[in-house]
């Protein structure tokens, strides 16, 4: 072969073997971080015990936390072992084994650092919570305030839940309608496409709180007959109107992401435009948009709190009444906890649906 060949005939020079990377330095850093973590955690546990006047539960929690913070000491000790092994192997000129010992030692040191950092963060949060004489704990986490407000809070949270669920059902239907309107073909569809486009633009632009104020206060003024309606229903309408605009975009993206060949295949079997949408495009699009759809639903759920501005007795309004009564924000924290508790299972449920669909398609 000449110089124009695709591969060079010259042999690559043998590279000089690299020396194992040092371990002692990272091992020391790991140990120091672990010790700092233990120290801070002991401090935090003492604060926790003192704040709760030495209550048994607080003492046990503190002890568990301190025990946990001791864990990174083990990998740290092992990392020093790795450093020693590396040195002795290097002395015997066993380069490959020394490199392995070095890699293992460094990994142990990094594990120690990771767990120690976690201990430092947890201890830091606790110390902050009990700073200024337990100011944070008192303001946000007073158990007595929780106990007093709980029955009323959970009752009004029920309003948030059913408002969210009813709105979500309405949004699913109305959003799909808007999405399909925006994708109508031909000149005949043009006016409806425009209307759907304007709707989506307008309601994505208006802040939800403005829509709520306009509808919940405005409709009873404009239509005297509506004055007897429960304002919660007007709240449902305003949330549905706002979120339909978002969900329409999600659906539209989902429909647009289905390859045109699917539509061609359906049409070639003789399915009409509507049948193609219903049996082929929408079922596939809905599966694809479950995660973004769920995102919008979680937003909607949280925005039920905005109904408090329209004097609807949902959980945030109730928590604010309790807050002004007790001069303590703990009921508001409780409301936050409620929202967290209902949101997390939904995220897991969406994951489950996605996994199940993937598994079924893969024929498992």
């Amino acid at each position, binding site marked *: 072969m000449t110089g124009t060949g695709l591969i060079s005939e010259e042999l690559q020079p043998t590279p000089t073997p690299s020396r194992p990377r040092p371990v002692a330095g990272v091992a020391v850093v790991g140990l120091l971080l672990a010790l700092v973590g233990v120290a801070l955690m002991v401090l935090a546990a003492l604060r926790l015990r003192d704040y709760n006047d030495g209550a048994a539960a607080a003492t046990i929690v503190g002890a568990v936390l301190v025990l946990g913070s001791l864990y990174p000491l083990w990998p740290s000790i092992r990392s020093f072992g790795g450093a020693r092994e590396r040195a002795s192997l290097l002395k015997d000129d066993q380069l490959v084994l020394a490199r392995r010992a070095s890699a293992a030692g460094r990994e142990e040191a990094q594990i120690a650092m990771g767990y120690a950092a976690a201990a430092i963060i947890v201890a830091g949060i606790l110390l902050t919570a009990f700073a200024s004489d337990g100011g944070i704990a008192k303001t946000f986490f007073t158990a007595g305030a929780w106990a007093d407000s709980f029955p009323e809070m959970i009752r009004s949270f029920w309003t948030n839940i059913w408002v969210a669920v009813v709105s979500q059902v309405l949004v699913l239907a109305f959003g799909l309608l808007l999405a399909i309107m925006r994708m109508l073909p031909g000149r005949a569809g043009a006016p409806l496409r425009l209307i759907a486009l304007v709707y989506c633009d307008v309601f994505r632009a208006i802040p939800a709180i403005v829509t709520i104020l306009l509808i919940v206060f405005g409709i009873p003024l404009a239509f005297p007959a509506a004055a007897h309606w429960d304002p919660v229903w007007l709240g449902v309408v305003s949330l549905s109107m706002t979120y339909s605009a978002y969900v329409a975009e999600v659906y539209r993206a989902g429909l647009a992401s289905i390859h045109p*060949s699917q539509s061609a295949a*359906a*049409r070639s*079997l*003789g399915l*009409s435009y509507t*049948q193609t949408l219903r049996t082929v495009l929408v079922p596939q699009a809905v599966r694809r948009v479950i995660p973004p759809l769920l995102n919008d639903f979680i937003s909607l759920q949280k925005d039920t709190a905005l109904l408090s501005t329209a004097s609807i007795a949902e959980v945030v309004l109730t928590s604010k009444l309790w807050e002004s009564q007790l001069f303590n924000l703990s009921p508001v924290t409780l409301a936050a906890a409620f929202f967290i508790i209902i949101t997390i299972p939904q995220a897991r449920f969406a994951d489950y649906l996605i996994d199940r669909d993937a598994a079924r*398609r893969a024929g498992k």
Partner: protein
Amino acid sequence: MAFLEIDEVHKRFGNNEVLKGVSLNVERHEVVCLIGASGSGKSTLLRCVNALEEIDSGDIRIEGDTVSGAGVDLNVLRRDVGIVFQSYNLFPHMSVLDNIVLGPTRIEGVPAKDARERAMVLLESVGMAEKAKAYPDSLSGGQQQRVAIVRALAMQPRVMLLDEITAALDPELVGDVLEIVRELARQGLTMLLATHEMGFAKEVASQVCFLDNGSILERGSAKDIFEHPREPRTQQFLSRVVASGRL
């Protein structure tokens, strides 16, 4: 009057004229192969026959009935004309069986039970019966393509369009699919197929058309085209195919 008549069909995408006046007659029970380089217009011609693309001018007739242009009953047309695609295009959210019965039940109003029975008979004949409950993504390309053929056959079309149906398959899976097409040809199904499998075209085609740059440059029996091509462009195309080991 031929069974399927394609008459001076023009089709453009924007400024790009893809079909420049293509005329072609397909008789009943005839198998016509379209060959030619990628981009020569084979797929577009097939899609036009099935009205998946609108033609700009010309005429397409089945038994003398115009099936192109405005006012055509597309659903009736597509019941008569089946198409199988290069990329199978099965519906991934439906099982194999549901893919096949969708057309007969929704379009022809066949009772679900009858449609399923017939689908099973067809699946059996292509060796796919045990996969009836499977979903397309769990099947190999060759299996998916066999299901796609069955899906088209379930509509009992009078003419089948096959658009490079083996082009996306692993070489070892091509044989199974071609065997089915061979069997369909033996049973007398009218077919119009675009293919890169020259050996297969030579074997089954009653007529071979060489498309180049949007028009049919040369046509004739398989023997004429493959052994005595007249046009220099056809000769060049075939010699390249031979050089790449596909003939």
